[in-house]
């Protein structure tokens, strides 16, 4: 592979997200020193993010400083990315597999006429094709797909690859204009942002640790035990469908078939029996811990570590122990 690789930067709270950094690692691996990895970032805050980008091992950074993209559709960003990919002669575009990243990949596959895959956990170049591995069926199986070239656009599964070390010398930053957008892309606008989970802790899709509560928590009032453990761990809070159906927590907390799919480094299931509808949303977590009073609960068959016990006793002890070792 000799053509450059373009990494699309996603920005959260004014900084590059860690899935973006993971893409740089994968880009460097694919380029194998034969081609540059180039960063791309767009939006009104792009200039300051570009500085950050220039310090993490990309050969240069392409910036589109245009506030239109802040509240516009992903489709508009796809236009800008396709133009940038043309400009630098890239044959591969990488982006973190977030909501934004997956939409971008679907759009670019058509706009830039590229082979596409999402939730990629491994990628290998062979001749003119890429072979990508990705979890399917909620982590109950994996598939390897062959993507035909010459162009590729991949959304990489977050929390899968290491982040690159900081570069000693910052790379160059090049500002390019926003290509003209079809008026049809400006019919929609974002009117407001509502912070996640009532503003506490990291969001579910993004967290490296998730603590979820299920029916075993028994009441809405008891759910604070789950939230305190999550807070001690710096984790996001999730729930099984039993909890959201009962209205103990809003449906945005739900992990599983009809809720969110998560793949954190650590998933702690508290009072969750482990119905398949829940498992498909969390099975691809790296390490799974189950705490349940029923030793025959199916969750113990998929967990790495299990505690059979009364969660009302175990959770406060666990929260205290974690606070102790973390010096909180």
């Amino acid at each position, binding site marked *: 592979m000799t053509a450059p690789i373009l990494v699309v930067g996603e920005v959260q709270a004014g900084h590059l997200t860690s899935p973006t950094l993971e893409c740089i690692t994968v880009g460097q691996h694919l380029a194998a020193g034969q081609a540059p990895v180039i960063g791309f970032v767009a939006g009104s805050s792009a200039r300051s993010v570009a500085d950050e980008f220039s310090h993490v091992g990309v050969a240069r950074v392409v910036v589109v400083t245009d506030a239109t993209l802040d509240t516009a*559709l992903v489709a508009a960003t796809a236009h800008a990315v396709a133009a940038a990919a043309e400009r630098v002669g890239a044959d591969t575009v990488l982006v973190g597999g977030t909501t934004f990243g997956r939409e971008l990949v679907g759009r670019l596959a058509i706009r830039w006429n590229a082979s596409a*895959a999402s939730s990629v956990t491994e990628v290998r170049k062979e001749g003119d094709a890429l072979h990508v591995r990705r979890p399917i069926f909620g982590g109950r199986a994996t598939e390897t797909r062959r993507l035909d070239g010459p162009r590729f656009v991949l959304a990489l599964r977050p929390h899968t690859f290491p982040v690159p070390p900081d570069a000693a010398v910052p790379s160059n930053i090049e500002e390019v204009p926003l290509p003209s957008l079809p008026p049809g892309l400006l019919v929609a606008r974002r009117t407001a942002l509502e*912070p996640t989970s009532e503003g506490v802790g990291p969001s579910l899709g993004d967290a490296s640790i998730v603590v979820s509560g299920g029916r075993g928590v028994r009441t809405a009032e008891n759910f604070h035990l789950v939230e305190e453990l999550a807070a001690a761990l710096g984790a996001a809070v999730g729930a099984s469908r039993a909890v959201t159906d009962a209205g103990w927590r809003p449906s945005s907390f739900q992990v599983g078939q009809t809720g969110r799919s998560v793949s954190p480094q650590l998933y702690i299931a508290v009072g969750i029996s482990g119905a398949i509808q829940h498992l498909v949303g969390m099975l691809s977590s790296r390490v799974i811990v189950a705490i349940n009073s029923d030793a025959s609960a199916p969750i113990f068959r*998929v*967990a790495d570590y299990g505690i059979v016990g009364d969660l009302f006793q175990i959770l406060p002890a666990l929260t205290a122990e974690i606070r102790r070792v973390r010096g909180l």
Partner: protein
Amino acid sequence: MEIVVCLKPVPEAETRLRAATDGRALDSEGVKFVLAGYDESALEQALLLKESIAGSRVHAVSYGPGPRTEEVLRAAIALGADLATWVEAPPGTALDPIAAARALAAAITSVPHDLILCGKQAGDDEAGLVPPALGELLSLPEFSSVVDLRWDAGTSRFRFLRSTEEGGERWESSGPCVMGLQQAWNDPRTAKLPNILRSRKATIARRPLEPVPAGPRSESERFELPAPRTGARMIEYKTPAEAAQQLVRLLREEAKVFP
């Protein structure tokens, strides 16, 4: 309002997965196919909109091989869809999300559409690429992970919430547009028996797959099941504090997931 809903048949959640003999895909022998979970939300959302806007119709469109594709369309009719179109994939066609989007887009272009609803991803390949690819193919705005969709008759615009990693995003858009539904704000309805019986005789428009334009594609070459989990390592303890200490030690020293 003319509402198009894109539906995909997927193996039901309880399916015992195994690889086909060539090792490239799921062995679908004896597998029961049902409406994908998020697609069920999309259909429910379409039916709710239809009920709230006089003169609306719901048109279910699906791409795939028979008989499963025809079956999910009949299920959609039993639930209240007015029209159904089946874009037939020849048996044994490897389903590529981008090719599926092209097949659906060709069908949608030839029917009236003020709103196109999809599940945000299907429960089998979980690619989530069809809604954005459809948006690009039809030159329409597309929104994924929509959780709460309303029609504002006063302004003739859709108002909705998207659930993203950063939290909720409130949006408004005029139609037509494409949406990938994450969850309906009501539980999906179930079909009544007389409607199920009627759906068996309903007309389904069949559309042959148009020749796919030459271009990049992808194909599954290997389907693997993870090594069977051996079950959890169970922590033995006398007091809750001891259980907590042991777990934290294992997470730090053995699993190395905890600083």
